[in-house]
């Protein structure tokens, strides 16, 4: 059993290649609850000191968010309005304590259907950077999260960064989460929207929904239907057809029917919020 705190990505990858079960940890906000009161088997590789995984940097018109960046750092960073949705999601992640420790990358790797970070990042068209000793590959986020608690992360790989591509000019965004209490709550459903206008009309939109399917999903039909609409009079635009990619389940937090109805309403509200604040 060991505890390793590598300072470079290369060190982290080589630690991961060592024999013996090693688990990656950053904020610990998922690792420890999953551990419960059982002992840790194997060791931990702490990623919070890895230089390449730190910081948020503007790059080629887009942004690189290091794999060890916390929700709190997102909130403390000056970012354009297209990140308002991601920031709103950051504020809804657990509590200030969780936001201070938990990382965006960890949220993605944990791959909970109710992960607060995924819809906003899907709506930003995020890609993940996966590092291994064989090199680095990139995947669209939609291809990275493959199922409930399942990702495309291969053995020996580390999610080293997120990349947010250049966003259309004037893009604005929003995020709404529905839960049964104010703080520290798992979503019943959540919606994030990014959209942009040209000549007084909606020119494009990306809308993603979480906790209404095993993996958070974009709603392409709704996105298409929005193009060309006038933002001033945007009313109830979301129809049941638009929600076809979703497969909401019924559980302790809400019935499947409820989730479907709530998503439609939340989509409309998220769009209005993105447009009008």
């Amino acid at each position, binding site marked *: *059993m*060991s*505890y*390793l*705190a*590598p*300072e470079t990505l290369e*060190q982290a990858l*080589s*630690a991961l290649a060592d024999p013996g079960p090693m688990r990656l*940890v950053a*904020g*610990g*906000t998922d690792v*420890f*609850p999953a*551990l*419960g*009161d*059982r*002992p*840790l088997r194997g*060791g*931990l590789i*702490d990623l*919070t*000191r890895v230089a390449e995984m730190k910081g948020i940097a503007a790059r080629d018109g887009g942004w690189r968010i290091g794999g060890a960046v916390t929700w*709190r750092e997102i909130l403390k960073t000056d970012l354009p309005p297209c990140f308002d949705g991601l920031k709103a999601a950051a*504020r809804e992640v*657990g*509590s*200030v*304590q*969780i936001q*201070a*420790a938990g990382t965006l990358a960890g949220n993605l790797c944990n791959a909970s259907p109710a992960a607060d970070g995924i819809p906003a990042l899907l709506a930003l068209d995020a890609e993940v950077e996966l590092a291994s000793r064989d090199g680095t590959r990139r995947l669209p986020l939609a291809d990275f999260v493959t199922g409930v608690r399942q990702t495309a992360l291969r053995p020996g790989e580390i999610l080293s960064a997120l990349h947010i591509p250049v966003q259309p000019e004037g893009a604005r965004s929003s995020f709404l989460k*529905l839960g*049964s*209490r*104010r*703080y*520290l*709550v*798992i979503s*019943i459903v959540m919606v994030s929207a990014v959209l942009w206008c040209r000549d007084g009309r909606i020119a494009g939109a990306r809308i993603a929904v979480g906790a209404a399917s095993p993996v958070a999903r974009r709603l392409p039909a709704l996105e298409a239907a929005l193009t060309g609409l006038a933002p001033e009079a945007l009313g109830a635009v979301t129809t049941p057809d638009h929600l076809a990619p979703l497969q909401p389940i019924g559980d*302790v*937090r*809400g*019935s499947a*029917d*409820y989730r479907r*109805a*709530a998503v439609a*309403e*939340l989509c409309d509200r998220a769009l209005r919020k993105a447009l009008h604040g």
Partner: protein
Amino acid sequence: MDKRTSSPLTAFHLNGRIVEAAPLPGERLSHTLRERLGAREVKVGCNAGDCGACTVLVDGVPVCACLMPAQQAAGREVDTLTGLLETPEGQRLMRSFQDHQAAQCGICTPGMVVSAVALLRETPAPTEAQAQDALGGVLCRCTGYRKIVAAVVGAAAPRMGEGKVGDTIRRLDGPAKVEGRERFGDDIADPDTLVIRVIRSPHPHAAFSFGDLAALERRPGIAAILTAADVPGLNAFGVIPAFVDQPVFAESVARHRGEAVAAVVGTPEAMATFDPADFPVTWEPREAVLSVEEALAKGAPLLHETRKSNVMTSGFVARGDAAAALSRADVVAEGRFRSGFVEHAYIEPEAGFARLVGERLEVHACTQAPVMDQEGLAQILGWPKERIRIVPTAVGGGFGSKLDLSVQPFLALAALKTGRPVRITYSRTESMQSTTKRHPSDLTVRIGATKDGRLCGMDFRGDFNTGAYASWGPTVANRVPVHASGPYRIADYRAAARGIHTHNPSSGAFRGFGVPQSAIAQESLFDDLAEALGMDPLDFRALNALRDGEPTVCGQVFEQGVGIAACFDALRPAWEKARADCAAFNAASATVKRGAGIAGGWYGCGNTSLPNPSTIKAGITPDARLVLHQGAMDIGQGANTVIAQIFAEALGLPLAQVSLVGPDTDVTPDAGKTSASRQTFVTGAAAKLAGEALRREILKLCNAPETAAIALDGDGLHVTHEVQRHDIALDRMTPDAEGYVLRAEETYDPPTKPLDANGQGHPYAQFGYAAHLAVVEVDLTLGTVKPLRFTAAHDVGRAINPLLVEGQVEGGIAQGLGMALMEEYLPGRTENLHDYLIPTIGDVPPIDTLIVEVPDAHGPFGAKGLGEHALIPTAPALLNAIRNATGVRIREVPATPSRVKAALEAAGGAT
């Protein structure tokens, strides 16, 4: 090369001091701080980031210490409450938390204060919303958060008195709580104490057999394995003598998920790497009955062979002829109402420490009932109870569940078998799986009224899911029929309640013993009746409110002290304003509607028709110390302060001169259990008697009249009346064996009479009364319900300490709100504070407490009990407010957004 932790030492600054520790890989910072560095002010409530009690600052930023790998702290600044006390923000919060009584039990206080320090450093004058955002990650189950918000935003402090009856004063035990010095169940043991880990059933019903226990016992560091075979006395416990049915360790069959079958005792090092999954046990799952329907079905497996059809017991009250009255009533409202398991969710999981001292056993654990613990352990050990000493620790919330034995039998058996000191702390999941719950209820109720608005007949049938073992289930079955009428005049009444066993954790005592459930049904149907009669809901209740000289449904007539009408009167201005405000709001709002709802409640203080004594002892030492042996467990509600105020007033000396000795079965007499809203009333009455008796002893020494004034100082006692003064030199008197030169010990037992077969009699010497007004906002599209404010009128007879009354009311309302809107315990599904939702600081709106004082002849200075009353009207008031907002009647709690939306759609009222 990797920065391998070649040296296992981790060094960081703790409260400004460099410290080094050698945590194991995977060790949480909270554990390192508490067990390796002595920072026990860091509290652990969930080990999952769900409660925030362990909040510390790392480089100035609040984080949950339970989620941080200890090594991650290397080279950083870690500050706990202790290190922040002397900062300007810490000093300010120490004062304001005490001024507002923002700490009740005190277990969440370190997390609250640390989070608040971080806020005040960034935002010296925060708004309420900023305070809520900053403290949203710390759960509190006692206060209802309002006092915490007031303390953090720096609201004006309430005016403090000097400690007379009726004075608001700071809690006497407040400083230890706000400074993190209070020692709870997990704070007693030395770090090297042997650790107990309980092995529990993963199935609701399963036979089991053990493998090679001896091999496990031989493993390095393992000191003992405990099973049913190690119980020297009776392998059973329970709180009601006729229903002692719960084994310490199941013997061959487990009857609920989480039931204990064995325990492993070992060194902290060995237990840190012990995985319960490695315990050699084989399970054979059996058919389980989880609901009342399943348990009552023909051929259902029996939980207990002697309890036919799984019916544990039943309660019954009948007066007049309910059926005839209902048939002649002009209007009848009826309905079926259901509720689920509710978890107490105190932030302190059960914990304790035990050791052998000579031939005796000493148990330090959190409890609401030290003498019952002593008696229960005596039976389990087969020992005389004098060989067992119970020294209660501070209690981090109880609400009923810590009345039952939990960790104590394991501590006792482990100490006995190993001969060494032992400790145990339940994990959050273990606490939730294995301790008692509020009973799920299934109630079918009919209530009638005549055209003139008077109640005319009530029929109540209730089934309560009592789980695997009896616990306080019989009390619920008996209390509910006595209370299900509410505080109203109903001449023709029939109420029957049953407790049904299922393969679930035991349902037991939880603030209100079944009455919060029955109040939902009765108070909801009252709104139906008022509507059918075209009456205002408050007028309808006021018209039917019980008054002095009128019989209760048990035929008990109180000639004085019935305060429910006064509560309704007190609410009337707020009610009329709320109704008008809601109507005005709704006229301008299509998809968001507001509503105001009202509900009344009552609760009999003390045991139902059973002896219920409390004893209080006090003495004065030769060096002029006035000592009060205060045995009423203060679980956050304030007994330490209230009982002392009563005693000092009766004695006639300033409260500041009273030194408290707490509950301890060796030195403090039995003040009974902290339960049934009895401590202010019963122990308070004993304290008053003790104060008066001590006063008489003093006056007797100098033949002074009752009107004489007493003073105490370093020279002794001074008695003056008119111009005469007597000085009593205490140091010349001969102390008794306990060191007292003057003493008094008095017992009070409230007068009750048994109930006959129809439940007629005098179940309680007093009731307390309450009425709540809730205002809510309902989003018709999403089904979300947002409480906007509460107004709560409580007849407490006499408010001994008005701010403590507010604290009880606000905390009770928060729990009622949780029960109404979000809380449901599902075994196997919501066994942590992540999935089981209790209200956060952002969920409890402003609460106005209206203190009503209709004195009670039996209560000390007229005081009545309050603890449970604070919760009873809350849920029905909320449901009635939802109905007022939407026209939709919710008959199953919690009223989650999903359920509210479904009800709106069923009613065609959805948009």
